[in-house]
């Protein structure tokens, strides 16, 4: 087996630990002055060097070059050091507190801690993942941690110090490992790449370091994987592919699509990503990072060190930041953050991303305070620019032709209302009679909920009959003159028109018809027409057609 690079290049001297000077310096000084404490707590995020530093400290205390004293520069080659590095030393015990978390495990340590070291000078207990100890186990540790024998040193290491009892914390010297900067990680990667003879560009190293998100182990692990994948020559494209990172161009493209409110374009964009086999989870993370970068660039003169980029990329960021409103950015970040949460709960990434994109491109749909703020800001900008004229929600286009005259059996034509000019031809084009019929029940329910129960009752038996241009003919059954009058009440008609507009996105004029006046092309078999009695053979035909019934046996009536 090839040993993972992150294990192979574990630092073995204090000087080699990168980015934690505040800790190594304190430790080195403590050793120099012979004031090594008996209990340390190493806290910090994953892959920042906690366990590594603990091991170096153990070596420093036991190395033979110290000649009976602790040394600040363990050689790493004497038998003691080698045993410690391999985890085989009898005096340095690495304990996995997460799998040995009970009180009995701690009691076992307590029973043995009083024995003098076998080979080395000091006994060092490295208790890793200490946050997983049970409360009882923590309490059993307390006495030992406060006053251990002179030859014992405890090093507790954890990624979650807030889970460690305060009584434990107060007995330890606490060292907080900080997240290394991008530059530090890149430097380490470069070093490893040089030693392993991996050919890789500086820019690619930066990408890997960034993906490592503040962890040396993640970054070196990725480099390891890439070196294997590419056989020695690592290119930028390979790195992006293996990490599943989105190319910068794609991020710029999507943000532009969204700010142009192009819903269709955004949905097609996601389709394209999915067909390319992109990891949408990762894309979401990258998109959020990109939006954050835009946000930062928008508010700073000089980009901060956290945005390490090329000149070209920075230029792109600047120009996109200039053409994007701050309120848009915050709203996008909010919506995408919600998506991330949903995905963690097990939702489908693609679905969630698509929904969020629809909301982002149609701010009118979203009634949250944030979205209202966005719309308000747009209004203010328009006002300032002096270009505010009453505009409908959707880009208006004037209706070409006047509403066609409907000559057949129109009982009460409706006078065209004033705002018929702003009919959205686009939604009108999409609108069909069938879709109106499909949405009819919803429309009625809405009317009822708006305090129009009479109109609801009147329309309950009605159905959209035909749609020509902007005229919608509603047919009421035979003998419903009373209901028709109800529909024609101006108040009611206005409400109906408004609902239709909200649903269909187009302004329609309503014409009502009563009874079963046959029209050319009208479907003859509408059953509601009359209480028509069907012949048995007709009934059977209907059953077969509508329900797919099969004729089993014909029974003769006697």
């Amino acid at each position, binding site marked *: 087996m090839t040993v993972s690079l992150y294990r192979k290049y574990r630092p073995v001297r204090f000087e080699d630990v990168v980015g934690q000077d505040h800790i190594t310096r304190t430790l080195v000084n403590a050793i120099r002055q012979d004031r090594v404490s008996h209990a340390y707590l190493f806290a910090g995020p994953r892959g920042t060097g906690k366990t590594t530093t603990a091991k170096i400290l153990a070596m420093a205390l036991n190395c033979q070059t110290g000649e009976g004293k602790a040394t600040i520069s363990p050689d790493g080659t004497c038998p003691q050091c080698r045993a410690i590095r391999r985890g085989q030393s009898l005096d340095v015990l690495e304990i996995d507190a997460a799998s040995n978390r009970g009180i009995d495990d701690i009691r076992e340590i307590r029973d043995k801690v009083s024995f003098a070291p076998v080979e080395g000078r000091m006994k060092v207990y490295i208790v890793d993942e200490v946050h997983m100890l049970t409360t009882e186990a923590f309490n059993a540790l307390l006495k030992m941690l406060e006053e251990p024998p002179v030859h014992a040193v405890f090093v507790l290491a954890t990624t979650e110090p807030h889970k460690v009892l305060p009584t434990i914390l107060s007995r330890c010297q606490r060292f907080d490992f900080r997240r290394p900067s991008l530059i530090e990680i890149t430097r380490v990667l470069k070093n490893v790449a040089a030693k392993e003879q991996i050919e890789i560009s500086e820019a690619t190293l930066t990408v890997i370091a960034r993906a490592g998100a503040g962890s040396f182990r993640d970054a070196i692990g990725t480099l390891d994987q890439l070196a294997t994948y590419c056989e020695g020559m690592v290119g930028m494209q390979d790195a992006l592919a293996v990490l599943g990172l989105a190319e910068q161009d794609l991020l710029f493209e999507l943000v532009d699509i969204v700010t142009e409110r192009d819903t269709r374009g955004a949905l097609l964009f996601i389709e394209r990503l999915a067909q390319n086999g992109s990891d949408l989870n990762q894309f979401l993370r990258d998109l959020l990072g990109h939006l954050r970068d835009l946000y930062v660039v928008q508010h700073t003169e000089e980009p901060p060190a956290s945005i390490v980029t090329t000149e070209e990329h920075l230029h792109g960021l600047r120009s996109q930041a200039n053409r994007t409103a701050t309120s848009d950015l915050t709203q996008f970040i909010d919506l995408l953050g919600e998506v991330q949460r949903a995905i963690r709960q*097990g939702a489908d990434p693609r679905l969630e991303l698509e929904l969020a994109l629809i909301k982002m491109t149609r701010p009118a749909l979203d009634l949250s305070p944030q979205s209202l703020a966005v719309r308000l800001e747009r209004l203010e900008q328009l006002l300032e620019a002096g270009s505010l004229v009453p505009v409908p929600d959707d880009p208006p286009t004037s209706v070409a032709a006047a509403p066609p005259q409907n000559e057949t059996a129109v009982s009460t034509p409706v006078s065209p209302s004033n705002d018929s000019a702003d009919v959205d031809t686009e939604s009108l084009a999409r609108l*069909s009679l069938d879709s109106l019929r499909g949405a009819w029940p919803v429309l009625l329910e809405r009317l009822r909920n708006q305090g129009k129960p009479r109109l609801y009752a009147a329309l309950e038996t009605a159905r959209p009959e035909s749609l020509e241009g902007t005229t919608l003919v509603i047919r009421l059954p035979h003998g419903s003159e009373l209901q028709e009058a109800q529909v024609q009440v101006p108040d009611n008609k206005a409400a109906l028109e408004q609902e239709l507009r909200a*649903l269909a996105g187009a302004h329609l004029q309503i014409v009502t018809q009563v009874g079963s006046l046959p029209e050319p092309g009208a479907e003859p078999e509408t059953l509601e027409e009359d209480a028509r009695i069907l012949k048995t053979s007709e009934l059977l035909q209907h059953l077969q057609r509508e329900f797919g019934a099969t004729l089993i046996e014909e029974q003769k009536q006697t």
Partner: protein
Amino acid sequence: MSTGLFDGVVGQPLAVAILSSVLRKGVGHAYMFVGPRGVGKTEAALAFAAALLCPERGCGCCEACRRARAGVHPDLVTIVPDGNFIHIGAIREINVDAAKRPYQAAVRVYLILDADAMNAAAANAFLKTLEEPPGHVRFILVTNNPERLPQTIVSRCQRVPFSRIPVESLAAHLRDLFGLSEDDCRALARVSQGDLRYAREFVESKSMQDARVRVLSQACALPGADFARETAMVDEMMDVLEERQAQAVAVVEASRERELEWAGDARTRAWVEKTLNQRSKREKRAAMLAGVDEVIRGFAGWYRDLAVVAAGAEEVVHNVDYLDDLRLNAMPGLLNAYLAVVSVAERTRERFRYNVDARCALEDMVFSMKEALL
């Protein structure tokens, strides 16, 4: 290494390229196969395990290869969730077991399926072993939701990414597999959204096809449904769920007599009875969840499709075979309502991760969806 090793893995060029280069150049100690469900992660993991265990590094035809791919090689340890979780006990067993030498092969492979099912205790107990295992140990973790795993676990593994299978490759594969017509294959590839396992099961199972038609027609009828119809919908869903559960229990019951036959004394009998009862309960719940998933998937898919049609992007519809109905029903003015309905579906899915009463949750889903549409 033979090239045919990963033949069963469809439409995952990147993952296959990574694994092949790993096998050529040298294998690390921990890999995490990440990607959506049903795209061939487990098949790839078994093939990779075979390559690790085979003396010829994956010839594909020797005893070791065959056993590994069937999952019965003595040096291949497979861990699956017990119930909803992988518990600390299972991980402790690995920690001890990993110290043992392999029986036949040069290495011991631990395959952990649904690794995100590890609870916090289990994941933490795994950290030390996962970081620095003995030299003869290899770990393969398989997960469709790495976000649920602690970062400390993820950071210790090399990632092998899997993605949804693109329509083209999936359609081609289905054509080879079942000999369906070109159009059917493309439609199925879209409907399954790149999920090969779903597509396969869908072709083979009549009941799944029926279930889809039923759920979609329910979803379609919802806007016009009155209270009685809504209640009837929930009744219908419950009937299907109960039927599924009954089938699952029947399978377990069928094996009861056979298993008890081998149990000698009363104590063994009691133990066998107990494990059978546990299994039956587990299967019952799994059947229920699978059924619920179908319903939610159907409703969410339908209203997502309505939303994209209403937004004018017909090309990305999933239920392509229903495109005409979608066109008929999609209203631009209801776009907001469609989004709300999908959120209701997702919320219901989330609820089923806890022990909710199925009827209550489904009723709430149907009523809330209707309300969102108004």
